[in-house]
């Protein structure tokens, strides 16, 4: 896995600066448009906003130059652009709600979460000087992840919101510990798999031309499968369930290079999901709402109403969208969080939605690129797991809104209103920055 070291390795920091300028432009223009259409565009205020963006991103840029000079130069600008679009959209939805007499302050709250997220990201880079340190916490992470996952089921602190029991109440704020569990599990899977990959890759019986792993090695997969099913049934959250299981299977595949694991894993999940849908009514109704969303009685019963209203919104946006501030995203319940993709689709159109999806593709592909460039197995697995976590989460949310898969309650990374998601995803970016810094650092500079 040695690479040929170049004497003049480009850090890419200068390119990053240029890309950051674009991110600031997008964020400030979007906010300006929103304010303009709400007739409250103030030159002073928008200048302060632009200044704050420049200040924060300059700080991040300088911090990277100082503590992670070889970190991937595309990650932060791409994330910043998404956050900028998300903040503008959420602010716009606040105005839409206000027009209907509903007083919300999602935009300002989300801005605070984004700032805390950036701080956490920098903290990760500052404190974690070598990602290999994380391997020591493999099992600690596993336990922490499990606790985080199970917290919502605890009495008193666990809360059920909109049918999904994935929230806990801390100091009067609801948190989604599942978002953080995701990171803990990726660390745990990476540590566990890098130690046991040789065993798990051992050949077992051959069935239908597919070389299966040994039956006795199925234990870990079975365990994660059970956990995922329990989440789906008791926390009523197909999204988190699919996300965790999907991450595990993907990392298992990368670790063992055995496609049979993917086949077994996906098959097991499908069987479990169908069984859960048949046995438990609340799981089943999600499938009905997905498959028969536009049917009159399914719609009237309210099962698919939110989904269909989201479709109406996106359809009204068409190719180019109504324009920021010109649509009616407030007609979709949870337009600022679960359905922010539908809101964006309505006001920015298919064109804008495509651009957003491409930003995610860029972020994820940079993570995969980092995985390939990383020299250690643990780092490869970690980068793959984190990147795939973002990809799969976007797929589950956007796929739910666009009726590719059943609708679930996950949040769109960096766009949707919600603190837990914002913080967790910024931590992921922090880890990816650290990983990429170490991956791209030339041999002779390496500490």
């Amino acid at each position, binding site marked *: 896995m040695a690479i040929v070291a170049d004497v003049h390795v480009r850090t890419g920091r200068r390119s990053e600066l240029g890309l950051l300028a674009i991110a600031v432009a997008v964020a400030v223009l979007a906010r300006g448009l929103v304010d303009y259409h709400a007739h409250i565009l103030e030159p002073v205020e928008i200048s302060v906003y632009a200044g704050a963006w420049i200040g924060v991103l300059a700080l991040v840029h300088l911090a990277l130059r100082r503590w992670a000079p070889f970190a991937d130069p595309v990650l932060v600008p791409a994330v910043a652009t998404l956050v900028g679009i998300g903040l503008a959209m959420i602010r716009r939805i606040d105005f839409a709600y206000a027009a209907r007499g509903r007083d919300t302050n999602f935009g300002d709250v989300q801005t605070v979460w984004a700032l805390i997220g950036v701080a956490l990201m920098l903290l990760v880079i500052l404190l974690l000087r070598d990602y290999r340190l994380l391997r020591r916490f493999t099992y600690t992470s596993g336990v922490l992840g499990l606790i985080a996952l199970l917290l919502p089921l605890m009495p008193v602190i666990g809360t059920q919101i909109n049918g999904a029991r994935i929230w806990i109440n801390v100091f009067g704020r609801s948190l989604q510990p599942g978002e953080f569990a995701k990171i803990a599990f990726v660390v745990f899977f990476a540590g566990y798999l890098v130690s046991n990959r040789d065993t798990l890759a051992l050949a077992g019986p051959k069935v239908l031309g597919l070389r299966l792993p040994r039956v006795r090695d199925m234990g870990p997969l079975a365990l994660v499968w059970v956990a995922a099913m329990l989440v789906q049934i008791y926390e009523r959250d197909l999204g988190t369930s699919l996300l965790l299981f999907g991450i595990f299977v993907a990392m298992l595949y990368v*670790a063992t*290079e055995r496609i049979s694991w993917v086949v077994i894993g996906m098959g097991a999940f499908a069987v479990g999901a169908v069984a859960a849908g048949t046995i438990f009514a609340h799981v089943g109704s999600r499938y009905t709402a997905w498959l028969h969303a536009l049917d009159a009685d399914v719609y009237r019963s309210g099962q698919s109403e939110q989904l269909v209203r989201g*479709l109406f919104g*996106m359809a009204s946006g068409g190719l180019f969208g109504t324009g920021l501030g010109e649509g009616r995203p407030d007609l979709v319940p949870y337009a600022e969080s679960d359905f922010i993709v539908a809101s964006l689709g309505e006001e920015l159109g298919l064109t804008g939605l495509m651009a957003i999806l491409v930003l995610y593709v860029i972020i994820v592909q940079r993570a*995969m690129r980092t995985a390939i460039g990383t020299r250690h197995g643990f780092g*490869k697995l970690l980068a793959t797991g984190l990147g795939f976590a973002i990809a799969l989460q*976007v797929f589950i949310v956007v796929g739910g809104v*666009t009726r*590719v898969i059943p609708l679930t309650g996950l949040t769109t990374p960096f766009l949707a209103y919600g603190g837990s998601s914002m913080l967790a995803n910024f931590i992921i970016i922090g880890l990816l920055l650290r990983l990429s810094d170490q991956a791209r650092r030339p041999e002779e500079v390496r500490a």
Partner: protein
Amino acid sequence: MNEPVRRLSVLILVLFLTLMGAASYIQVIDAGNLNADGRNVRTLYREFGNFRGPIVVDGDQVVWSEPVDDPFKYQRTYSDSTLYSAVTGYYSIVFGSTGIEAAEDGLLSGSADALFWTRMGNLLSGETQRGASVELTLSAAVQRAATDALGDQPGAVVALDPSTGAIKALVTSPTYDAEALAGHDTAAVNDAYQNLLGQDDGPLVNRAIGGDTYPPGSTFKLITAAAALESGYTADTELYAPDQLELPDTTATMGNYGGGSCGDGERTTLAEAIRISCNTAFGNLGITLGWNVIEREAKEFGWGESLSIPLAVTPSRLPEDPDRAQAAMSAIGQFDVRATPLQMAMVAAGIANDGVLMQPYLVEQVRDSDLRIIEQSEPVEMSRPMSASDANELTDMMVAVVESGSATAAQIPGVEIAAKTGTAETGRDEPPHTWIVAFAPAKDPQVAVAVVVDNGGTLGAAGQTVTGGTVAAPIARQVIEAALAEEG
């Protein structure tokens, strides 16, 4: 481990391409269906959220959009709604739209092709889409006179400018308040609508141009007379006019109104037959002329045509293949002959305009939001059912009807009026529908009118004997007075 990472990258790309495909399907391919879905209030909000152009009568807005503080942004407002709702229709978030609101929706909403350049201009200047204003041909004074004259009697009045076809008044009674149906409180709108639907006298039916249409009765004798004149008859041609006309191939006979005689009880002239509305003379014409001659004349005057003024007009009907007895009945406007009041006004207008029938229309011009005229109606000739000389001959006969015939109640001092009344049996045990068609001044016609009062209106309901002359003629007089006063 690099190979599986690459494969995973490809899988991720496939996942995202799936999302992009799904988004494209929703936002482009299936967007039309989703936007048209009845449950999609967004389409309603957007449509209703546009500034919709006003409907104008005599330079005054009678329907306009008032900015309001609710999701629809504008409230459609109707002044004098019961005066104009037969024409303007309503614009409801629950029940859709009718009348001019529906027929000229593209122009009013601003989405019509004719407004393409206006829209482009608005787009460039950042203004929102604004609809065009639709100016009607109606005359406020004539419309009000007709409405007041009809009062609360069920019926309809149509007044035309015979030389252009412009509709000066179009009244149906009873009518409704469009404002009650245009509200944004769907429950209240629904209540109002159900209430209107529940009423027996059909306030939502536009009797002037639609509904069940009426048997025209004796007013149809104008068509039979026109057919006779076009076939070589003159005002002085003697017609067979017995007291009782035996209907061929039946045992039935046809009598005159009140059992009276025409002329000497055996023969009378065409002019005299019109003046006193002799049934047997015209019934016999139906047999001797042949139904196809009368049918051809009626079609020339507009029977069977699906007019769009631009409101859709129910075609007036003629019997199919009547035998000779039925032809005799049809020639006096009974049996299966049916007509809208607009059709009967067109008969008067065609005769008045020297035998040239003009296409009736309601929209005078359309202006965009910058007041530029984007559509201007030009009078269109529809047909030439009569020669000018025959038309003038028939006019003279109709003048006699007002001077000393069945329509003396329509007289206005100093004005020569031509008219023909009708008293049409409905075939049910109820008072007849009372008609008049008229135009004035006879030598230089400015207005042509048709009036119908269902079952003789107030007098009929009071059990009195009713005729077109007693019930409808006074209404026609008031409409003509208003129209002539306006012409100055």
